[in-house]
């Protein structure tokens, strides 16, 4: 097929019925106050469940950093008569997969099981019992604290981890988002069982929980499942709003590290997840550093100059103002050149925004690629979790393509300028000779 014919094909592709293809989301609130979200899909005999708590590192005191993560890791270590091995067997003997994780905003407990009742019912009941009433055995906590210290040291072998920690500390000085989800050496050592018990009592409660369910159940079955889970938890209270992020103290920080590459990361304060500019910024960032080879950062830094393997930028919207981060890594000798180019790319882009061609491409990619973002149960359950956690409208997926298509150059450019336009940014460079 000649190039021109392909272009025509591309131009005339309309996205048939895509908006209508977005799966239907059911939403309700349980008696205990948990917010439930459900997508019914029978294509595979399996069910995915996420319990999402507003119980991550943004909720821990600055001198107890790592508390949220330790609480999350200790959830499966014991409950009632069950020890860690009995709990693990309870899931794995039935082929179920269970996991816990905790970062800055969300603490997630995920369960994947076959939908056959003989497997699903026992693992769901086990999950609800264990997560609502963990026993946090003292001995296991000592072991997990030691493991966490070792994991922390392990992660600090990587220059990008070292840099990322300093970046968040600088960006959010005095704010809970400055907490390191993995903790610090000092804070981890100071955490004790009472801390976990209190943290769990306050935050692992129904009113602070989203239950997202995707899979081979009908609505009545899903409601029954959610009710059984929710009923195990105390009602409690939703976590309070986080304080506003403080103004950035612009700066450039350099850390020496024995690596052959230097990692450069530049951050601004971005937006909250419910910011009306969210999609305009997603589209705007596509051409700056979010669109891989279609972005200016990749083009200028990798394609034109061969300076870095990766060069990219992203917004990380959270319940409070999340960051915008642009990153690259390059051999130590040429870090100043790469850093200069990346600053120029960002500054230049903020002057006029995307070109008409760039904007068109960004919108086509984001709308045309929409089906790919919801093509598996795994992606659906994580989308549902975000919709629930950030209280996005339940027709979020239905209106997505239309809202992207409605964006024009002015709106996208103004959004980018209003968020990133000020000179307040923090840069961290980690590498040998820094």
């Amino acid at each position, binding site marked *: 097929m000649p190039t021109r014919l392909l272009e025509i094909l591309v131009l005339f592709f309309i996205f048939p019925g895509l908006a209508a293809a977005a799966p239907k989301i059911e939403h309700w609130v349980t008696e205990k106050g948990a917010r439930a979200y459900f997508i019914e899909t029978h294509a595979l005999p399996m069910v995915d469940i996420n319990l999402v708590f507003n119980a991550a590192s943004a909720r821990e005191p600055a001198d107890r950093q790592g508390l949220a993560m330790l609480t999350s890791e200790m959830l499966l270590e014991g409950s009632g008569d069950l020890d860690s091995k009995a709990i693990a067997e309870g899931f*794995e003997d039935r082929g179920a997969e269970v996991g816990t994780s905790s970062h800055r905003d969300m603490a997630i407990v995920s369960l994947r099981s076959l939908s056959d009742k003989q497997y699903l019912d026992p693992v769901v009941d086990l999950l609800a019992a264990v997560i609502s009433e963990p026993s946090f055995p003292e001995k296991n906590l000592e072991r997990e604290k030691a493991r966490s210290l070792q994991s922390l040291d*392990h992660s600090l072998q990587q220059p990008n981890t070292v840099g990322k920690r300093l970046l968040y500390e600088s960006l959010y000085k005095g704010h809970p988002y400055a907490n390191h989800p993995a903790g610090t050496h000092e804070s981890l050592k100071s955490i004790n069982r009472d801390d976990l018990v209190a943290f769990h009592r306050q935050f692992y409660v129904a009113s602070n929980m989203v239950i997202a369910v995707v899979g081979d159940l009908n609505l009545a079955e899903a409601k029954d499942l959610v009710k059984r889970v929710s009923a195990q938890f105390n009602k409690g209270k939703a976590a309070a709003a986080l304080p506003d992020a403080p103004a950035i103290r612009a700066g450039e920080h350099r850390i020496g*590290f024995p690596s052959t*590459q230097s990692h450069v990361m530049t951050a601004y304060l971005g937006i909250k997840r419910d910011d009306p500019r969210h999609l305009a910024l997603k589209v705007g960032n596509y051409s700056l550093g979010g669109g891989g080879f279609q972005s200016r950062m990749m083009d200028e830094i990798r*394609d034109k100059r061969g300076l*870095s393997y990766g060069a990219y930028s992203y917004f990380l919207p959270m319940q409070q103002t999340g960051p915008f981060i642009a990153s690259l890594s390059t051999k130590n000798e040429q870090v100043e050149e790469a850093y200069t180019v990346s600053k120029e790319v960002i500054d230049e882009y903020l002057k006029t925004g995307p070109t008409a061609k760039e904007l068109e*491409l960004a919108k086509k*990619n984001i709308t045309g690629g929409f*089906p790919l973002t919801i093509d*598996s149960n795994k992606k659906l359950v994580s989308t549902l979790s975000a919709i629930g956690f950030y209280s996005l409208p339940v027709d979020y997926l239905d209106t997505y393509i239309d809202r992207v298509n409605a964006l024009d150059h002015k709106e996208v450019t103004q959004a980018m300028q209003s968020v990133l336009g000020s000179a307040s940014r923090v840069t961290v460079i980690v590498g040998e000779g820094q």
Partner: protein
Amino acid sequence: MIGQSLKRVVQIFIVTLMMLSINGFAAADKSDVTEAMLDNGMKILIKQDHRAPVVVAQVWYRIGSSYEPDGITGVSHVLEHMMFKGTGKYPKGEFNRIIAENGGKDNAFTGRDYTAYFQTLEKSRLAVSMELESDRMQGILLDEDEFAKELNVVIEERRLRTEDKAESKVYEKYNEAAFPGHPYGRPVIGWMRDLEKLEVDELKKWYQRYYSPANAVLVVVGDVDPAEVIAMAKKYYGPLKSTAVESPEKHVVVNQKATKRITVKAPANVPYVIIGFHVPAVANKPENDWEPYALEVMSAILDGGSAARFSDQLVRGQQVATAVSTSYDPFARLAGHFLISGNPARDKSIGQLEKAVLEQLKMLQGKPVSETELQRVKAQVIASNVYERDSVFYQGMKLGLMETMHNDWRLSETHNDRLQAVTAEQVKYVARKYFQPENMTVAVLDPQPIPSNEKSAKTDSKISSKEQYNAN
């Protein structure tokens, strides 16, 4: 390899981890793979999955680092990068741009035994993928200047993945020690010394030699009609001419006579050890054809979840490890290998961890694994058989791997049944046969201090305190 997050040198390590969680198709699915062959010898495999209006197209080539001679290691992977740098018909940048404009994702990966290119698209755009992918099978430019720049990108990639990652370095040196003179002893991304002097002419030869329809497999998975896909493949790939591709040399692993030990010094905070044994893969046609499957079940007995022996006994019970895992790929093209790797707990040494691991292996040689353990592994096999169908990409990956490495995609179908048939006695048998000192290689990371640098932080010197950034 291009792109960012999706992009990785698929080293056997990673593939093996994935292989452990995937276990053949359910019996009910046996009919939903359609197979075809074009006149030029290109194999086509189509699997229908109508859950979402999405399609993934992958083209696999039988070429990878294990085909490379010394001196040009990494050439397969650099060539993969250059596949994105323009053809006579679609100049540099057009491939990625057109896919992006169609809402697609595209990328590529290189392993020891294969190089694969893929696009994931809304289902009506499959022709776009075929137009572009068939064009670059034989039409890339390999421009000298583009090559020079891209080689620098690959060298940066090597720094990022290997030079600055202590554990990756240990893994690289481990392979060199365990597979002396064997292609699996070389890194997929290539030695730095070879990359630095690689020339574009080597890529040209490599491209002409291996990028031929007869040496390629097209895998399409998604919301498609097989007859339409075959017709489309004929249109786009049919006209390509096949050149004769010589079969690669069949390398054999030299019989090891004694335990090998190596130590790698690198900046790090936490020690690390790899303990490995030469074992057969399916391709090695072992004395008993069930041995690879028994090894795979054994791997799951040790490391198939939180109830498995390593988590239960080494991490929680004895608390000798912070993390410890196994990896084994029964479908490697040239040789199987059973790897155990881990970090010791904070107050434990590498020696203590190694001793505890070897005791675990000894237990497998003594008493047959319990029925409870075996049943748990089998329950996980049945479940993962369903779970893996949640990803169209992964379903394609399995078909592509089996067909590329063994000319037999059906291996992925029988896999599940073979695992279900494994007995406790068979697990004990392979443990006794292969976990022998003369068959073992051990590589240890000797962490070198990461010095603190207090001159940092021009605006706030308190931020990078020593405690915060340098553990030791």
